[in-house]
């Protein structure tokens, strides 16, 4: 990327030209996205050579984890302690908690294994809201068509239909668990109307929320519900390292890493649900991310080694406005609400360059073009971004920052910026994994007794996700997978349980000429200074 305009010079240009022009030059959106959106960067993609998705394109960083060896060997698990459960849920974010609750209520004994603490994932960070077609001017069909259209017609239509059809019932279910939603001002909690907002790509106002803390409210409620649910046990600090199989190749549980005791712990389960969330912390192409610390695509790597089909692996959502500086906060989300309220994007020459409310992939591509062509704003630290012109917004609508953009002000404060006086420096941030493990409407993967739900699953959103559909997905498909897994767990199991699938995997890797020394899942970001191999040997010794 080019150097960009030094920040002081850019600030002068911004001051001289503010407020930026109300119109922008017309853009060839398709060409812009093809040229500048990271999904279309051929150099960043490789073709997978082994596994169920061999031949598919995939970002190199993810491919390195999919085509990798296991940290677990046959001999390692021989002496490891093991326990039995009906349903094992891997990942205690939103999707994992919903699945655990529903599986337990369907009569299963459930174990939820989390890498960090129960609830520390992407769900708690969601700000905007959840989509459900409840408005009189709205319908399930509209929600369906918006979802498929936003996904560039690549979604599995049956899954998308299941998603939207579950929407209203999912909201009712969440209220039943104790989650609050905003109601329309002037209406009542009993018999009133839910407050709805319209988001980019939606044909009706359908985004339901609790202020800009929807995910926080959802995760608080789900975590508390799981904690109190009889039949569910939560294991914190137990990341999954490998899946287990039975004699027929069906999934039979997982090998966990007991972080505190630094040793392996086996869980034999009648059904296993992968709910490990996203992949932002892989920092594809060096991008910053909005995701939580544990978003390292672990579930994709585990399911892939067992032969599960994956889809749309080359498709990610880059949110246009992540913080660009300071380094410690880079990637954190500046919500779309700022642009929805009228904040404009301005380059280093003080010019507006895109309709800020165009679809996310278009706005992200437009910002990347400015950065690449030298019109970005450069700090002395080497950060590069464009301005989000909050001062002009405040000047036009006095009080808007304080009244409507509370989270933004909080974030700006920590970045050391007064958003009423200085524009924020923003740039696209890696936000969401559009594809993932292929599932059917009950959350079943292509591997027997293995289920997936939440961000790790694929097919619902196609190649681009509508804002608010991820929170709906984790409730709708978490419930579906939980119930189906509880039933599946009752079927008799066959034969010895172990990691027999790894020998086939190794043969395939060798045949493809791929090295076996690199292991996945990654568990923590590369800068987490964690060495699993060392931790394991230390524990054994």
């Amino acid at each position: 990327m080019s150097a960009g305009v030094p920040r002081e010079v850019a600030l002068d240009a911004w001051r001289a030209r503010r407020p930026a022009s109300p119109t922008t030059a017309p853009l060839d959106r398709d060409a812009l996205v093809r040229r500048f959106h990271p999904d279309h960067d051929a150099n960043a993609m490789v073709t997978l050579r082994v596994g169920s998705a061999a031949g598919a394109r995939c970002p190199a960083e993810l491919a390195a984890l999919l085509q990798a060896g296991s940290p677990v060997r046959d001999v390692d698990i021989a002496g490891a302690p093991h326990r039995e459960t009906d349903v094992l849920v891997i990942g205690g974010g939103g999707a994992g908690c919903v699945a655990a609750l529903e599986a337990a209520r369907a009569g299963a004994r459930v174990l939820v294994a989390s890498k960090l603490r129960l609830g520390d994932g992407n769900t708690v960070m969601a700000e905007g809201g959840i989509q459900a077609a409840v408005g009189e001017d709205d319908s399930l069909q509209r929600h369906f068509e918006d979802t498929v259209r936003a996904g560039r017609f690549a979604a599995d239509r049956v899954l998308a239909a299941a998603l939207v059809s579950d929407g209203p019932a999912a909201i009712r279910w969440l209220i039943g668990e104790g989650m609050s939603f905003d109601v329309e001002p002037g209406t009542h909690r009993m018999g009133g109307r839910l407050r709805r907002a319209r988001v980019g790509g939606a044909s009706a106002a359908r985004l339901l929320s609790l202020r800009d803390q929807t995910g926080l409210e959802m995760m608080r409620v789900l975590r508390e519900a799981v904690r109190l649910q009889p039949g569910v046990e939560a294991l914190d600090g137990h990341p999954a390292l490998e899946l287990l199989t039975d004699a027929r190749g069906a999934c039979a549980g997982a090998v966990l890493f007991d972080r505190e005791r630094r040793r392996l712990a086996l869980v034999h389960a009648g059904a296993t649900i992968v709910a490990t969330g996203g992949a932002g912390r892989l920092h594809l192409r060096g991008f910053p991310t909005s995701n939580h610390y544990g978003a390292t695509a672990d579930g994709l790597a585990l399911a892939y080694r067992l032969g599960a089909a994956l889809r749309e692996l080359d498709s990610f959502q880059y949110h246009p406005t992540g913080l660009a500086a300071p380094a410690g906060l880079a990637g954190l989300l500046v919500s779309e609400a700022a642009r929805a309220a009228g904040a404009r994007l301005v380059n280093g020459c003080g010019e507006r360059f895109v309709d800020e409310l165009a679809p996310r992939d278009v706005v992200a591509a437009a910002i990347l073009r400015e950065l690449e062509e030298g019109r970005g704003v450069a700090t002395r630290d080497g950060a590069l971004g464009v301005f989000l012109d909050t001062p002009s917004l405040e000047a036009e609508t006095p009080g808007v920052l304080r009244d409507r953009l509370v989270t933004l002000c909080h974030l700006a404060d920590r970045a050391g910026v007064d958003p009423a006086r200085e524009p924020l420096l923003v740039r696209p941030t890696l936000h969401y994994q559009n594809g993932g493990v292929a599932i059917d409407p009950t959350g079943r993967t292509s591997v027997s007794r293995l289920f997936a739900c939440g961000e790790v699953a694929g097919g619902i959103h196609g190649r681009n996700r509508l804002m608010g559909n991820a929170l709906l997905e984790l409730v709708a498909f978490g419930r579906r997978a939980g119930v189906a897994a509880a039933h599946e767990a009752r079927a008799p199991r066959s034969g010895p349980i172990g990691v027999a699938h790894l020998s086939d995997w190794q043969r395939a890797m060798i045949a493809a000429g791929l090295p076996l020394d690199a292991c996945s899942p990654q568990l923590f970001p590369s800068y987490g200074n964690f060495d699993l191999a060392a931790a394991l040997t230390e524990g054994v010794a």
Partner: protein
Amino acid sequence: MSREGDEPDARGARVRLRFEGQELEARTDASLVQAWLDAGLPLVENVGCMGQGVCGACRVLVRREGEHAPGESVQTALACETRCEHGMEVTFVDPISARRPRPYDLRALGDSWTAFDRIPEIFPEAPHCRHCGGCDRACPKGIEVERMVGLASVGRAFDAAPLFDECVMCNLCIAACPEHIDPAHLGQLVRRLVASLALRPADLMARLREIEAGTQTVDVEAEIPEEAP
């Protein structure tokens, strides 16, 4: 240089602090979590959202320079939201859980005439609050925890619930409470009661009736126009 033109990088003076007994050098615009990682130390717990300040995982005890007087209390904080200062002494707080689990079944508290009376049954210590303010001092979000406890213990759930809007479930108030009241979970109980008993949006109910009656369906095969209507 004017405040406006001040570069973010110009603010980052270098300082020294102690974190879990280790001497670290850090910049004042870095958070404590960032300083820990930059020092090459392993981070596999006490972290989640990495700066958004919503998951409550990164609890630390912080003693600032000049607070060495005997008996001087240290402050609790979230490491991802706290910037480095010279002379700080920082330690992570181990995960805190309620001393006694308080089982209740939200769905069994369905009678709104009696549900709020049950609060002191489920949290029998709540009426014993000694107003020591320990919870308020411990809360990194500045929540009026003590006030919430008072309101909740007399059944004023609607007044109590909004006080916990910003709670990130860090559980520091649990650790601080000498009466073992578990304010964090009490806060969740009142919030959950308020929603599950008294949020009944008419538009949602109407749509659910339509779905039940079969008048809201999805045509999976529909021809979908490229552009939104």
